[in-house]
């Protein structure tokens, strides 16, 4: 079966190359009927690639450990669902999944009206670009990072999926990110194709309009993936934080920033017919940055908390990124496009352009900062890296600036000037009022104060705007934008409070003891365990015990702390954090934190294990307004669905 899967991938590589080559030949007038063949070839490609994925899925489901990939990421004790999701647990599988989402999007696009009504030349260029990207993926999957490596003889059992990945958040986080990465490829290739065929700014729907469902779907899945990853990190990793500015997290944020910059300049193009070339470049940049992000974390370029294995795919990825960047820049710069210059910075158009600047600046800063340990080697003998303090100091203010721009944007006319003076004044007043109220409440850190007031400002601005222009509520696309912005405001509010105002303490408690933290008292009522849990240095005996336990009983042994929380003396609820030792990972303690949900302050408890005297080692924290981040994230990821509606009159 390994060979079947592998050869299917090889066939896909040849098909993709042939597809791109044939289209280029027709463009030169050498192969008159290439387009028809390319369309069929693409259908065949999708079929072969899907079959190849099916081989891997079947191996995962059947627990066929003769596949190195299946051996490394699953075991017999793992449930069916987690076995299936191991598809994207490793590097080879996630690259394959990424390519698969691309292939499926690519198979859907020719069925849409957006494609069928395209001029032939555009279609040919589109297939040429798309074929090249697909061919590169297949090359990586067959040459450097293949999921079809075989073991002989096959081992009895596999390594198992790492316990920290056995969490619903982790199941959906990677595929959503990869769906996002994959979805932007279609519009990216079409944008370049239109630029090369001199189709920018012509009559008829633009490339952005034609691929709108892909753009929005990709943006929303990418956003949802990032937010879900943050939530997973908060719930699962036991440190009570949601963002550590680790290279891997930064890598997912960079394409999102590029995509968000594009969404704002795209509005200028749709409404005002400007920035045509900029948009082509930005759209291509999204896909390129997704590749670059992958290179950054998989190519062993920077030290990360995430330990990836050595990958040979690093150099090819880098070369592909450089080549794509040069091609995209050349194509978009040389594209003939006539458009008016932008209106004043103090117009809606101008502010949207500024928003795009901020997004791009954030993207560039984050890339440079992540690569700093490598860059600094140019002049320093020792590499100098940047800690989270850098990002919090340098990047967070720019997110606040975005929120401030968002407060002002609805009130400016496209060409400049205030549109609704009274409501705009009211919004400004509410912003100042929020500033004063938060200051009185004791929020004295300047960034947190301005961010929190800006978040209130955005929300009130949006409400006032919808009141002033009631028609907005009937336009699905406008409503989508407002919903997303409201979600963003809630997230800004959550980050402004939960970051700087988090309180944390560690405690070593025997049953009956308690600890106080910011008005809360937490009492350890009891310790429960399903087996004798050996304290924080698992011995061979403990490992043996865990293995035996796995035979008929649970897959792990655990100890659970029953904590009662009291707020100012009144019972507030119960927390039950666990520490586990999984049979397959006896050398590692897995932490299952627990929270006392609250839209105000959330109590968070992690049990690290027991010490020599059987005292529970706990970390307890209070996270103010942290759940607003998730609430905002949900709005941010769901509202774009509305934006996929057909364009209404006067809709943007």
């Amino acid at each position, binding site marked *: 079966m390994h060979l079947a899967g592998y050869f299917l991938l090889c066939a896909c590589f040849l098909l993709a190359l042939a597809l791109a080559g044939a289209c280029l030949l027709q463009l030169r007038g050498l192969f008159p009927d290439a387009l028809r063949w390319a369309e069929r070839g693409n259908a065949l490609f999708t079929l072969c690639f899907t079959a190849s994925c099916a081989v891997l899925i079947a191996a995962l489901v059947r627990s066929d450990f003769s596949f190195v990939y299946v051996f*490394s*990421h699953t075991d017999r004790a793992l449930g069916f669902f987690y076995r299936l999701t191991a598809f994207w*647990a*490793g*590097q080879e599988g996630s690259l394959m999944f990424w390519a698969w989402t691309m292939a499926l999007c690519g198979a859907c696009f020719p069925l849409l009206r957006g494609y069928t009504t395209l001029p032939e030349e555009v279609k040919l260029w589109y297939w040429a670009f798309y074929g090249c990207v697909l061919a590169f993926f297949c090359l990586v999957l067959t040459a450097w990072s293949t999921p079809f490596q075989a073991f002989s003889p096959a081992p009895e059992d596999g*390594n198992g999926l*790492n316990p*920290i*990945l056995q969490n619903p958040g*982790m199941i959906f986080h*990677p595929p959503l990110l990869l769906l996002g990465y994959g979805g932007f490829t279609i519009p990216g290739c079409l944008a370049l194709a239109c630029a090369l065929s001199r189709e920018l700014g012509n009559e008829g729907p633009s490339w952005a309009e034609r691929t709108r469902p892909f753009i929005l779907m990709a943006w929303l899945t990418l956003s949802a993936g990032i937010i879900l990853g943050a939530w997973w990190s908060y719930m699962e*990793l*036991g440190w009570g934080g949601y963002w550590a500015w680790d290279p*891997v997290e930064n890598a997912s944020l960079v394409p999102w920033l590029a995509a968000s910059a594009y969404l704002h300049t795209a509005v200028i193009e749709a409404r005002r017919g400007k920035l045509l070339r900029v948009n082509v470049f930005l759209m291509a940049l999204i896909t390129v940055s997704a590749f670059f992000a992958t290179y950054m974390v998989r190519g062993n370029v920077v*030290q990360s*908390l*995430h*330990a*990836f*294995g050595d990958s040979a795919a690093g150099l090819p990825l880098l070369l592909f990124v450089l080549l794509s960047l040069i091609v995209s820049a050349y194509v978009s710069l040389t594209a003939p496009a006539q458009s008016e*210059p*932008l209106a*004043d*910075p*103090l117009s809606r158009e*101008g502010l949207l352009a*500024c928003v795009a*600047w901020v997004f791009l*600046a954030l993207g560039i*800063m984050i890339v440079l*900062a992540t690569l*700093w*340990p490598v860059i600094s080697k140019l002049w320093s003998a*020792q*590499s*100098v*890296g*940047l*800690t*989270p*303090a*850098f*990002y*919090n*100091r*340098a*990047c967070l*203010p720019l997110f606040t*600036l975005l929120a401030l721009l968002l407060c002002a944007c609805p009130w400016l006319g496209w060409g400049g000037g205030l549109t609704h003076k009274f409501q705009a004044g009211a919004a400004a007043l509410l912003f100042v009022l929020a500033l004063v109220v938060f200051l009185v409440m004791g929020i004295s850190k300047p960034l947190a104060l301005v961010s929190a007031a800006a978040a209130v400002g955005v929300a009130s601005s949006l409400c006032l705007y919808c009141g002033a222009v009631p028609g907005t509520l009937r336009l699905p696309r406008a409503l989508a934008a407002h919903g997303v912005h409201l979600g963003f405001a809630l997230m800004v509010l959550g980050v402004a409070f939960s970051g700087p105002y988090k309180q944390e303490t*560690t405690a*070593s408690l025997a049953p009956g003891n308690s600890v106080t933290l910011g008005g809360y008292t937490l009492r350890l009522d009891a310790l429960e365990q399903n087996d004798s849990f050996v304290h*924080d240095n698992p011995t061979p005996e403990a490992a043996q015990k865990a293995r035996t336990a796995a035979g008929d009983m649970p897959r792990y042994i655990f100890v659970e702390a029953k904590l009662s929380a009291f707020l100012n003396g009144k019972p507030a609820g119960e927390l039950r954090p666990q520490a586990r030792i999984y049979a397959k990972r006896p*050398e*590692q*303690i*897995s932490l299952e934190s627990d929270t006392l949900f609250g839209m105000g302050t959330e109590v968070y408890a992690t049990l*690290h294990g027991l*010490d*020599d005297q059987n005292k529970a*080692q706990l970390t307890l924290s209070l996270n103010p307004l942290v759940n607003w981040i998730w609430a905002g994230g949900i709005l941010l990821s769901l509202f774009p669905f509305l934006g996929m509606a057909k364009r209404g009159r006067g809709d943007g």
Partner: protein
Amino acid sequence: MRGTRKSFRLYLVALALFLAGTGYLLYAGFSEGSAYFLEVSEALAMPPEKLNAVKVFGTVRAEGLSREGQRVSFLLQDKNDPSVFLPASYAGTIPDGFKPGAELILDGSYEPRSKVFKAQSLITKCPSKYKKENRT
């Protein structure tokens, strides 16, 4: 045409303001958040007074490991050269996977008097044989 030129100038002003602001943020960020990222051998080769707020990567040596409640002292060994090591200590919550052979990332500073690296934070890296999005 005059309007266009004025608008262009305004954009230049906005860009200059923006660049100045970002430049300031970068400057402030660099002065607060930059640290040497060092392997053990590199850390030992540096003058001790420069080892203030640095990040050191290495593995835990089997000998010399002692723990007392939430306090641990150990020898941090160079990843490539096992003969080179740095005495280190840490007090606080000891994370998952801390054991001999574990890859560590330590944040802290070197104390020349006691010749011990005092870690403010200790993070274990997951063993590289699990090629997954691991972290602890």
